[in-house]
């Protein structure tokens, strides 16, 4: 087990350990730890104000953490020589000078990173901004165009790691589809992607791994498969075969859990009745844990929601 953990740590391109940010008494980010590994897309999920952006700013050296630390490619961000060549960062697509043209923004980036000027046109093409759009000032861009420009900037240095904060905001459905493909292929080529979102459905399509944050704390961290297991009941019996038959008879769909029990799409009472009818001895019967990411996420969101949802 320790060997596995070591291997995991050794391969992590992004490590965040016990990162905290306090503003006075308010803990915006509270002992956040997670990792992101190469060849995968890690979704950083949380409601607005949960601490996603603050965490990402700390990772990029823009906000000094109150405690904890983070590394990219094994070193603190500040120690990366020419960071743009190692990690593409897009924290806010709107944070661009309104009076500068899109092409000029990329040209400045290319100069700092030491890239040939031809890279500017290449990147405009990659993100689907036309030549005339590149000549327009960013102040006249839609949010979707700014996102494309920001992604072009992040990808320009041919980095191994991408850190993107809400990159799908303002993109139209075709743009969102395009970006998913782009991030997936980036990960397939061995890249590491960390992208944040406040929309579960937006992220579950593209992410392999999910890190969920709420009120500054990590509330879930695991593979998408683990976290998205449907809500239901976990049941275990002395005779697993008989138990399965009883569930079949009652018409409750189920899947086999990792340690021999069943995850059933039914309430505990329904499962109990089915087992009793078949005379199967039940050794464990409880709500499936780790299930219901969406429920948990909704809970998180509604707890923080400005308008209270009446139950």
């Amino acid at each position, binding site marked *: 087990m320790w060997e596995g953990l070591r291997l995991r740590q050794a391969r992590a391109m992004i490590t965040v350990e016990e990162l905290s940010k306090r503003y006075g008494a308010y803990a915006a980010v509270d002992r956040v730890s997670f990792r992101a590994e190469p060849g995968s897309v890690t979704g950083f999920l949380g409601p607005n104000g949960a601490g996603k952006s603050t965490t990402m*700013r700390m990772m990029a*050296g823009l906000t000094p953490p109150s405690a904890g630390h983070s590394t990219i490619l094994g*070193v603190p961000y*500040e120690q990366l020589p020419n960071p743009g060549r190692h990690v593409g960062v897009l924290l806010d697509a709107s944070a*661009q*000078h309104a*009076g*500068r043209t899109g092409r000029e923004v990329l040209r400045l980036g290319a100069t700092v990173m030491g890239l040939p000027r031809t890279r500017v046109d290449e990147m405009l093409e990659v993100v689907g901004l036309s030549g005339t759009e590149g000549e327009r000032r960013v102040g006249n861009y839609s949010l979707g165009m700014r996102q494309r420009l920001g992604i072009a900037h992040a990808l320009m240095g041919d980095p191994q790691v991408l850190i993107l904060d809400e990159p799908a905001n303002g993109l139209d459905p075709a743009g969102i589809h395009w970006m998913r493909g782009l991030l997936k292929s980036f990960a397939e080529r061995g890249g590491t992607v960390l992208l944040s979102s406040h929309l579960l459905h937006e992220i579950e399509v593209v992410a392999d791994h999910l890190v969920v944050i709420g009120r500054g704390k990590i509330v879930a961290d695991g593979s998408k498969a683990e976290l998205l297991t449907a809500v239901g009941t976990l049941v275990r019996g002395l005779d697993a075969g008989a138990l399965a038959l009883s569930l079949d008879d009652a018409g409750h769909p189920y899947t086999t859990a990792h340690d021999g029990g069943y995850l059933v799409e039914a309430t505990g009472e329904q499962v109990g009745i089915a087992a009793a009818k078949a005379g199967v001895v039940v050794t464990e019967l409880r709500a499936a844990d780790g299930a219901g990411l969406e429920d948990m996420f909704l809970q998180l969101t509604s707890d923080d929601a400005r308008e209270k949802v009446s139950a």
Partner: protein
Amino acid sequence: MSTTTAPAPFRPAVSPDPSIAGIPFSRHLRVELRKLVDTRAGFWLLAAIGILTVAAVAIYLFAVDPSELTYLNFVAVTATPQGMLLPVLGILAVTAEWSQRTGLVTFTQEPNRLRIVSAKLLALLVAGLAAVALSLAVAALGNVLGIALRDGAGTWNFEAAGVRDFVLVQLIGLVQGFAFGMLLMNTAAAIVLYFVLPIAWNILFTLVGGLADAAPWLDLNTALAPVFNGDTLAGNDWSHLAVSGTIWVLVPVALGLVRLLRREVK
């Protein structure tokens, strides 16, 4: 941030690509120079400096008595528009990173903020020297035209010390603007305070009789008054400039630096 708190029982398999070198300062300087002109605001500000310099000389050439058409006076008329606009250039160069929020990209590409600040200051000094050189050249042209067109006095009595003081005054204003920009990180506030504070301060020293002796030590404009009056800085003037310059330029630069290096970039 400490990396020693986490036990490291293994050598991490990942590390930054060693073939990628750090960013040389010259690239930052090039970028910061370019950023002075590649926005609409920056372009027109620099254009205004050029246009007003030429316009001031052109108007002066025909507006005053020919006996006053000397090189010294031509240089002096260019000093006013430049003296007002160069500090604004200094302010905008730094406040744009915060008000336009480009700092999010700038300081992500170069986490060492001091390198960015140094590149900015150097780029501003280059722009300031170019503006002063333009002044001296256009004023010389004006003087020649004054002789040719209006039979002007045409004297060239502007010695090296005069050039030195002129350059100094303009660059002091530029750096002071830069310092106010770093300190306030807000374009409007920095511009207003840059212009209002010294005036209010100056009025204070003018109105309160007992402060007159202290004025050249504490008020930068009083310390620089000899230059505005067509003299050159000499003797005690330098002590005045050292003290008031520390108060109005060096201290704001230092405080501004502290704020800029520490502030969270959002």
